[in-house]
């Protein structure tokens, strides 16, 4: 007797890398279900505030609802405080919103990237129920296990084992970080069937938000 499954994994991978004064958030644009492709041009990235971008992979129905929920809460914040939400504030809000549905979670694996109030890059990585951590870089989604070891190796970020605790932002320049993200997606596309088609890269820095698209393998 088949039971209705409220969830579905639409695949895809999201990555974010924080630098000294920039943040790169990238995700592929393939939407799949099972072994089929539903769309080659579906964005997983949502701009929630000036300096705050959310990339989520998982069940796109829940992701759409989560993004709408956060956008509405951000608008209320703007009305009450007369300014847009900062990235760390949005990070906490996202965590609370996810935990609110602890017993029927949003099937969304999130990576939040942006600039903090000092203009430094920040990346926050989440699990499905809201546990989060500020890191220097992160990957979530079907290709994350293929990408994280490469990012660990290539980003030259300070090791988390060092004392005193060091900021995990990468010392790489913005263009080097963008090139690395492109390489890492190209590699994951080779082996992960759910990742491919096109890569959407969003770079946030002091001059604003800049979007770029790169073609990936379509098989």
């Amino acid at each position, binding site marked *: 007797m088949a039971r209705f499954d409220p969830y579905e994994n639409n695949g895809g991978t999201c990555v974010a890398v924080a630098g000294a004064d920039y943040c790169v958030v990238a995700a592929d644009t393939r939407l799949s279900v099972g072994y089929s492709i539903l769309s080659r041009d579906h964005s997983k990235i949502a701009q929630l505030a000036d300096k705050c971008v959310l990339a989520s992979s998982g069940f796109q129905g829940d992701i759409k609802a989560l993004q*709408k929920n956060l956008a*509405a809460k951000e608008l209320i914040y703007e009305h009450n405080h007369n300014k847009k939400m900062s990235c760390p504030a949005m990070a906490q809000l996202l965590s609370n919103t996810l935990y609110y549905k602890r017993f029927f979670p949003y099937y969304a694996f999130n990576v939040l990237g942006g600039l903090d109030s000092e203009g430094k890059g920040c990346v926050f990585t989440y699990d499905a129920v809201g546990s989060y951590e500020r890191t220097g870089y992160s990957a979530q989604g079907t290709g994350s296990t293929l990408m994280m070891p490469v990012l660990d190796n290539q980003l030259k970020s300070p090791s988390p084992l060092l004392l005193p605790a060091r900021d995990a932002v990468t010392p790489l320049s913005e263009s080097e970080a963008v090139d690395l993200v492109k390489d890492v997606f190209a590699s994951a596309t080779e082996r992960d069937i759910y990742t491919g088609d096109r890569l959407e890269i969003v770079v946030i820095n002091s001059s604003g938000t800049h979007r770029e698209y790169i073609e990936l393998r379509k098989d």
Partner: protein
Amino acid sequence: MFRNQYDTDVTTWSPQGRLFQVEYAMEAVKQGSACVGLRSSTHAVLAAANKPASELSSYQRKVFRVAEHAGVALAGLTADGRVLSRFLRNECINHSFVYEAPLPISRLALRLADKAQLRTLPKYALVCVKNFRLRELLIPVCTQRSWKRPYGVGLLVAGLDETGAHLYYNCPSGNYFEYQAFAIGSRSQAAKTFLERRFEGYNDYTPEQLIKDALSAIKETLQGEKLTSANCTVAIVGRKDDGTIEPFQMIDATRIQEIIDSMEAAEEAPPVEPSSMQEEERTSDAAPMDI
């Protein structure tokens, strides 16, 4: 109007068919400092006179953004106004969440009017529904209990939707009307007289012209006091020529001061010319007599 035996609570009619409490609430609006609103076919402007309660205090905020496409200016009990602004903001957010579209201004004014009704004439009916807890239903028809008072604030609701720019005035009574231009609050009659003379051309006005007329209308209510960017607030919303929306926002003080200065310069310019012409005539007259 004088105190009488029919004005104690909002649910008592007078023999003449008046609800005095509602009328008294509308008096509260007349006591507040002035606000004006005007609109063209593409833009709507709201302006308010900033009157601090005392020399030591600052003025209260009277113009609020409600959504990207709409805002309100209020006169009367500003505390009630804050509550209503919060309500309107929530209504706009909920509507966009469900329909992915901005709430049309006529519907926004309607929600506000409905809320005024529910507040003034509540009927609480205890309904026992099987398997649910006792629920209280709010029905704005007749009355059984009445411990709530009307909102003591009048709101000018301005915004942009698919059918163009709109301006509504919402009364504490729950009535609302659409206007091309309107003024509320103390000494608003002077502003209304000014607007009545000019409103027929407003549909074709540019945003700058609308702002100038709004400032002139506020100036009428100040009655002698000098108009500066410190004692007025102006906000605008509209659709630009290229079709994109110009979101509801206050115009900043330096820009307002520039506009006020240019308005004053335009007023002063004409009188200068006739007097210099008069001097020339006198000198030319003097010469023949000066023998």
